[in-house]
């Protein structure tokens, strides 16, 4: 009953707020002691978020960081009263003004969502109804939350679409979502979210599915809108580099608990919690080739009640971390961490950027040219049938030295993956030549002699679909061993497979498992082991870290660096992530629309780019090094290294 009064914004305090807690400070949303669980089949409740405290202030952005599965999205959505199917809010409150969102009934919540509280999900394509025009989406929102009809509503729609800088707003109203690009769809989603002047906005990885340059445009637009409307924002993302550029405060979540929070600059320079430290150490930078370290293992699925959840993966863990659950401790105002050793470790966790001593064997042997190990000459790759043939790559030529690591960067559609597929021989429709040690490769892998086939191996982006779900890990790797390793006797395959697994740091117990029983990182390790089973001299990596969490991606990069340098394998490393390429490659090629824009050493390309497109790419990707150094990067201006 009381909710009806509160909804109208009267000063009624209702029965929910406790005395002694100030709700009159400027915070737009105050979340206290929020715990969320999921109903289990056995009737119990699995706690996935515990004791989350957050304050959102108008015009400010709080970033919520952490690996996937740490309860970020669950906590963010629960904070505005949303429960996933099967989800329950176990305790806590979330005050929007004087109203506790967690006590509201569903009908009142629905009145609030989309109006005063807005949410933008990762995938705009699925958040828009494909059967309705863009105009109808706006009609619905404006009618329901702002009671706007007819001419007033029409004018507001145009105003909103103009505000999100959608080209031709008038025309867009009559279009269907599928007629817009991904970036445009996300702009529409933004316009919808801002349609009723929300006071709280939840962003759940709003730019993750988009190309890097689109990402920058959307992020810039978001910042503009936030400053203009003074909405209080919670920004959920696993990308610390991005969060550090868009938010004022960052809260880090691990195993459903907030382990640390603080102002961005302090937090990324001197984290208080070992987990934050580990996360930051996994973030690569495009500005310098620096050592990155992944976090081994995986986050637990639920909240730990009687020990520190991070202890099993923590290099600083002591005996008491395994028997005692840490509370959040405040070191100084505004800085707190949920770690038993926060005072002792203070200072020890400061992030020291170490410029990397890593060099691939080729770079180490620089000077004495190894000749042209791989030579790609005037290659044009085509897709489609004879009648509708589209060139995805046009007249591309480059060479690769023995054991050299060459990065290929570009956005989706730039032809970089197509190029790899032609080289490995699964996309035979190309003109031009690919030769390995002077020997021209047949277009189709099957026409290449086995010895040549053995030398060129590929690892794909999505680890889940690059392993046959019906084969065990042993069967998957054994096949490559059978085909390419004459030195392994038939009876010894299992032994060889176990050795290969060991090489990618997986234990023998993985032999009998199926891909679905592995995590993404483990699946990618198996795919790498399969490639190395052939003892290749050229490894093609197609966005191998893009589907993985930052912490896992870093472990994969480390592994690839170890394996390729110890076996002197040359690598073509395709990625849209410039920072990752900087970390692993000696030289890089920038591709756009099937053409090479620029190539050179990573040092030269990333620190003194010449082509405007390279500059655009470099300036559009948020880099944690810039935030740390207090630099602002302007679009279209080459960033300082």
């Amino acid at each position: 009953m009381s909710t009806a009064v509160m909804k109208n914004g009267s000063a009624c305090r209702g029965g929910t707020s406790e005395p002694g807690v100030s709700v009159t400070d400027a915070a737009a949303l105050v979340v206290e002691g929020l715990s969320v669980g999921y109903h289990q089949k056995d009737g119990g409740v699995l706690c996935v978020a515990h004791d989350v405290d957050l304050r959102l202030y108008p015009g400010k952005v709080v970033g919520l960081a952490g690996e996937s599965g740490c309860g970020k999205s669950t906590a963010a959505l629960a904070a505005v009263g949303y429960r996933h199917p099967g989800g329950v809010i176990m305790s806590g409150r979330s005050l929007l003004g004087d109203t506790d969102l967690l006590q509201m009934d569903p009908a009142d919540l629905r009145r609030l969502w989309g109006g005063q509280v807005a949410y933008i999900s990762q995938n705009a394509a699925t958040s828009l109804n494909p059967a309705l025009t863009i105009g109808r989406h706006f009609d619905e929102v404006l009618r329901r939350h702002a009671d706007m009809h007819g001419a007033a509503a029409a004018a507001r729609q145009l105003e909103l679409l103009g505000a999100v800088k959608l080209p031709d707003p008038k025309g867009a109203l009559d279009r269907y979502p599928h007629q817009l690009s991904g970036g445009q769809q996300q702009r529409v989603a933004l316009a919808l979210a801002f349609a009723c002047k929300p006071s709280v906005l939840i962003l759940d990885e709003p730019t993750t599915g988009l190309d890097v340059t689109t990402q920058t445009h959307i992020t810039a637009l978001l910042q503009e809108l936030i400053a203009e409307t003074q909405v209080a924002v919670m920004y959920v993302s696993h990308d610390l580099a991005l969060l550090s550029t868009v938010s004022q405060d960052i809260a880090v979540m691990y195993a459903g608990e907030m382990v640390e929070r603080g102002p961005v600059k302090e937090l990324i320079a001197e984290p208080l919690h070992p987990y934050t430290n580990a996360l930051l150490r996994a973030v690569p930078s495009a500005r310098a080739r620096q050592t990155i370290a992944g976090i081994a293992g995986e986050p637990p699925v639920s909240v730990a009640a009687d020990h520190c959840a991070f202890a099993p993966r923590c290099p600083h863990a002591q005996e008491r971390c395994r028997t005692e659950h840490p509370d959040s401790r405040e070191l100084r105002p505004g800085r707190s961490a949920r770690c038993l050793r926060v005072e002792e470790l203070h200072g020890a966790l400061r992030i020291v950027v170490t410029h990397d001593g890593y060099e691939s064997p080729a770079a180490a042997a620089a000077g004495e040219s190894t000749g042209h190990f791989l030579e790609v000459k005037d290659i044009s790759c085509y897709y489609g049938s004879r009648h509708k043939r589209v060139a995805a790559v046009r007249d591309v030529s480059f060479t690769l030295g023995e054991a050299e690591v060459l990065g290929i960067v570009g956005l989706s559609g730039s032809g970089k993956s197509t190029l790899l597929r032609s080289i490995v021989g699964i996309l035979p429709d190309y003109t031009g030549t690919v030769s390995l040690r002077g020997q021209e490769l047949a277009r189709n892998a099957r026409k290449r002699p086995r010895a040549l086939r053995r030398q060129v191996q590929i690892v794909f982006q999505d680890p889940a679909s690059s392993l046959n779900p019906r084969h065990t890990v042993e069967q998957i790797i054994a096949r490559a061993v059978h085909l390419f390793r004459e030195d392994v006797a038939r009876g010894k395959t299992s032994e060889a497979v176990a050795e290969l697994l060991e090489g990618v740091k997986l234990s023998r117990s993985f032999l009998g498992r199926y891909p679905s029983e592995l995590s993404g990182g483990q699946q990618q390790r198996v795919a790498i082991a399969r490639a190395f089973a052939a003892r290749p001299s050229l490894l093609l990596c197609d966005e191998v870290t893009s589907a993985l969490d930052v912490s896992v991606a870093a472990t994969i990069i480390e592994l690839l660096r170890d394996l390729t340098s110890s076996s002197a394998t040359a690598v073509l490393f395709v990625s849209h992530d410039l920072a990752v390429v900087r970390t692993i490659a000696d030289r890089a090629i920038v591709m756009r629309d099937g053409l090479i824009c620029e190539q050179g050493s990573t040092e030269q390309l990333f620190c003194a780019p010449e082509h405007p497109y390279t500059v655009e790419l470099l300036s559009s990707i948020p880099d944690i090094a810039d935030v740390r150094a207090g630099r602002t990067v302007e679009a279209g201006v080459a960033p300082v290294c």
Partner: protein
Amino acid sequence: MSTVNEAGSAPAVRQKRQSLWVAVLHTGEGMIGVTLGIGMVLLIILGRFFGPSTDYNVGLPGSGSSAEHWFGTDTLGRDILSRFLHGGDTVLLIPLIAVTLALIIGGTLGLFGAYWGGWPDVVISKVFDVILTLPPLLIVLVIIGGLGASNTVLIITVALVYAPGLGRVVRGTAQSVMVNPYVLSAQARGESDLAIIFREVLPNVSGPVLAEFGLRLTYAILFVATLSFLGLGVQPPAPDWGLMVAENRGLITVAPWGTMLPALGITLLAVAFNLTADAISRVLAGDELSRLAVI
């Protein structure tokens, strides 16, 4: 044996690989469907050993239930219960063999069509489409009219009717499997076509195809029963359920069991397979969501 995880951290709880049939039995319709199906198959196989013999158990034609003939007698005075207990095998076996044959023919064509693409795929698809445009009864009438009615002709005809549908499902599923990087990876290894089809593609189309098979089997059971009813299927004096319905329908007011009992048998058999097929599709749909692997 304990599992050693990388870095020794606590292994996250992952979905364990679970057998398809275990998962199917855990759904309501799967449990009912499989139980009913097993019951009906047992009745069809073993029933004849318990019921009275067909040959010597003859009474007054068209009599209702009595102590001697529990479910009455048919137009010729034969005991309905004993004919029912003997007559299930054609109802089950003819569709089963026919649909299996349809799967082999249609599935092989669909699989190779999907794998090769290009003109072979176009030809195969068009042939499927043409057959699908013809009314099934018309196909059957023409073939049986030309070759005469026998169980072999019946099986081949029904297989021909169902092959395109199954073939299309196999082709569609195989096409979506074909684009997976594990297939590309096999191509990059230079594996032969057959190795790729049998090792990489076929195991991954079997799930959806199994569901489709169950559904088609249901249709085929009803279809063959219909054909027998029309006199195009199993020929007298065989004690086939569909044929029994046709023979005894004139006596439905006097000896209702003559039509009711075989009709009930056909219905239960069809329902059993249909529920099982539904359960399989449901498990597979959930499987897509949870990425749970199925044997």
